[in-house]
């Protein structure tokens, strides 16, 4: 049943050793940093983590990996210029890696949330990442059978939650959040705004049925959102709106 809690620590307190945890975000956008930090503090270990990356620099998921709390990671792009903690754990054979093309990663979680037992994807056919998987030609195209990825928990960041747990996101910070919310047995969400009023039902991105635990944590997203609203209220364009295309800018140079 939906609960609103006061701290990130409370929000992640149910996560136990050995759990599979889906963690949202693409780059910093949509990363539930405060929930990841709380998971770090919670001491849970032997985790399987699903995330697009494998942590960056000395923060969040990278620290969980540094402390060898992640037994396995399922991701599409572990190697980055600042993924040194993952690199070290991987080279030492102290973390298992399942490398999944980004679209298959998203679709496999979507399948888990949607009760699909498996699906034929064209992505990866004929590549190393399809080795050992069932393949099939359907109507002249080649496909690989992919299986659902389920989470015991999802840790995601949305922008706002209403009293029914309905969520909206902000710009490209939406990314994996809505899919992970459907694929986890228990979805934990950090939001910038906990609303007292209901969201417009037409605008809800993640219905409350997929949400279990909500914690309000102010972040830079809220600062940007308030700037945007202030601009719009003053009759000005959104700060993030381009006034020119790349071609127009290039032509000016």
């Amino acid at each position, binding site marked *: 049943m939906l609960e609103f809690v006061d701290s990130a620590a409370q929000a992640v307190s149910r996560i136990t050793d050995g759990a599979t945890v889906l963690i949202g975000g*693409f*780059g*910093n*956008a*949509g990363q539930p940093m405060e929930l990841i930090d709380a998971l770090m503090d919670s001491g849970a270990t032997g985790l399987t983590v699903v995330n697009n990356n494998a942590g960056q620099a000395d923060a969040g998921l990278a620290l969980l990996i540094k402390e060898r709390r992640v037994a396995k990671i399922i991701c*599409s*792009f*572990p*190697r*980055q210029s600042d*993924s040194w903690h*993952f*690199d070290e754990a*991987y*080279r030492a054979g102290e973390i298992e*890696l399942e*490398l*999944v*093309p*980004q*679209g*298959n990663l*998203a*679709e496999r*979680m*979507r399948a888990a949330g949607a009760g699909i037992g498996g699906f034929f*994807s*064209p*992505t990866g*056919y*004929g*590549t*190393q*990442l399809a080795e050992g998987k069932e393949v099939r030609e359907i109507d002249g195209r*080649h496909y690989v059978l992919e299986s659902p990825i389920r989470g015991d928990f999802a840790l995601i960041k949305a922008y706002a939650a209403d009293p029914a747990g309905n969520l909206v*996101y902000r*710009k*490209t*910070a*939406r*990314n*994996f*959040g*809505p*899919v992970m919310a459907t694929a986890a047995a228990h979805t934990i969400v950090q939001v910038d705004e906990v609303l007292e009023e209901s969201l417009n039902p037409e605008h809800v*991105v993640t219905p409350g049925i997929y949400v279990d635990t909500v914690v309000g944590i102010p972040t830079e*997203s809220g600062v*940007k959102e308030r700037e945007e609203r202030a601009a719009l209220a003053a009759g000005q364009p*959104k*700060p*993030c*709106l*381009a006034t*020119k*295309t*790349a*071609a*127009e*800018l*290039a032509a000016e140079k």
Partner: protein
Amino acid sequence: MSEFRSTDAPLTQDELAQVIAEDIQPGSFVNLGIGQPTTVSNYLSPEKKVTLHTENGMLGFGPQATGDQIDGDLINAGKIPVTELPGASYFHHADSFAMMRGGHLDVCVLGAYQVSAQGDLANWSTGKPGAIPAVGGAMDLAIGAKDTYVMMDLFTKKGDVKLLPECTFPLTGVGCVSRIYSDRAVLLLDSSGIVKVRELHGITLEELREAHPEVTFETVGA
């Protein structure tokens, strides 16, 4: 499809971006890969109404954000802050890759380590032992769009060919590349394995054939 043409000098990176931009049809939906392909957007005139897709969940993004435009929640697949254009839309990762995989994008422009004469693409791994693998959206992009264009130098810095009868690096996708846009040649590929030469820049057909003895070339219209 235009006639075969040739010039004396290799194309600069900007000229190459311009050639690709000119080939993109008005009203197209396009995904430009990270790095060099991004520069194609500098030559897509607003009148063409080309909409750019970024796989992290957006259609209709604008140029890189600067100053007050920068918003950490608005980034492209290269994790660079970008801007929003009128008519933009946001959607989640599964919807975004469904859009690609379902063949709704007209063109995807990608870099490559190697391309085979049948259009196989290798651009995610050099297969070096001990390297940490990372694929991202490369495999989804390769097979998703109606047309996948590769933008690359025709030869490596060491002078090795990148167009081969078969790729030697691990594949990203099979038979997915329909065109190679390179500094020295614009090449059209299909499952026949016969490479159609549309443009040559600073290289003759004989030199091209000599450099790729195992590949069969024909000029467009021949």
